């Protein structure tokens, strides 16, 4: 009886030592090599032109790093230079045929903050501006495209 008790006691002690040893290792924060991280370098292009009624125009870009691509429709104006708040369509796609089939798009008035931001892999893409049916005459526009 006594030897059984001693055996159980030793077993318990061994178990507690194992548990303690397993759970009380010193923890250290994971380390990684910062030199492996490539900082994103952004390019900004201005895409400006005259958008006809029911028209669509696009601008091709080459994204060299995966990252955010932002479109800012900065201004829409009459040919005479008067500012307009008319919403027009903007979008992103891949050039194909004679156009820019859009994979993402939205309708937006001009403004001084990016209206669309999408994350893209390296490759050739296009940014489009198009009339969604709001124009009664051709307008001038300016869009800022920022991409890595």
């Amino acid at each position: 009886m006594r030897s059984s008790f001693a055996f159980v006691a030793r077993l318990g002690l061994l178990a507690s030592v194992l548990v303690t040893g397993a759970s009380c290792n010193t923890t250290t924060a994971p380390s990684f090599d910062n030199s492996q991280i490539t900082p994103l370098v952004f390019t900004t292009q201005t895409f400006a032109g005259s958008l006809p009624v029911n028209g669509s125009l696009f601008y091709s870009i080459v994204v060299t790093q995966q990252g955010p691509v932002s479109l800012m429709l900065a201004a829409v104006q009459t040919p005479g230079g008067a500012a307009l708040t008319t919403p027009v369509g903007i979008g992103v796609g891949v050039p194909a045929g004679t156009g820019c089939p859009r994979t993402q798009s939205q309708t937006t008035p001009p403004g001084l903050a990016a209206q669309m931001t999408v994350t893209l892999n390296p490759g050739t893409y296009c940014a489009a501006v198009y009339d969604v049916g709001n124009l009664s005459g051709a307008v001038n526009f300016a869009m800022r495209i920022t991409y890595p």
Partner: protein
Amino acid sequence: MVRDVSIRVCLSATLLTVLAVSGCSELGPTTPQGPGINNPIVVKPFSGTLPLKGVQFYSFTVTTGGTTMLTLVDAKENGVTTEALITIGLGSPRGTQCLASNVLSVKSGGKPQVSGPTGKGVHCAVIFDPGNLTSEATFLVNIAHPQ
């Protein structure tokens, strides 16, 4: 007689070895050839109207590398095939244009007039009037590119 058979066996063995090493069999190639050589070709018709001194371009995506060929199949001014030289070329879409690196002024014909290597990615075929047209022209360019 025995010697003839030995020679034939030896020659056959040598031939089989050479064929095996070179990747050939009676049924054709057995090993992959160079990139782009056996890739399926897609032919896309690029047609439109070219204004005087105007430019038009057509973008296409290549998923495997290979050679792309352009043929100005037809160009007409006022419905009549023109003898004017028109420039066609291969390049990459940049900004609002097709930045061409390989161009040639040609008359319409049945054979490919411009060809060049196209790697994986988006490319474009461009046609423009260098100043030879006397009126706008309708055109058809066939773009034969690897998939």
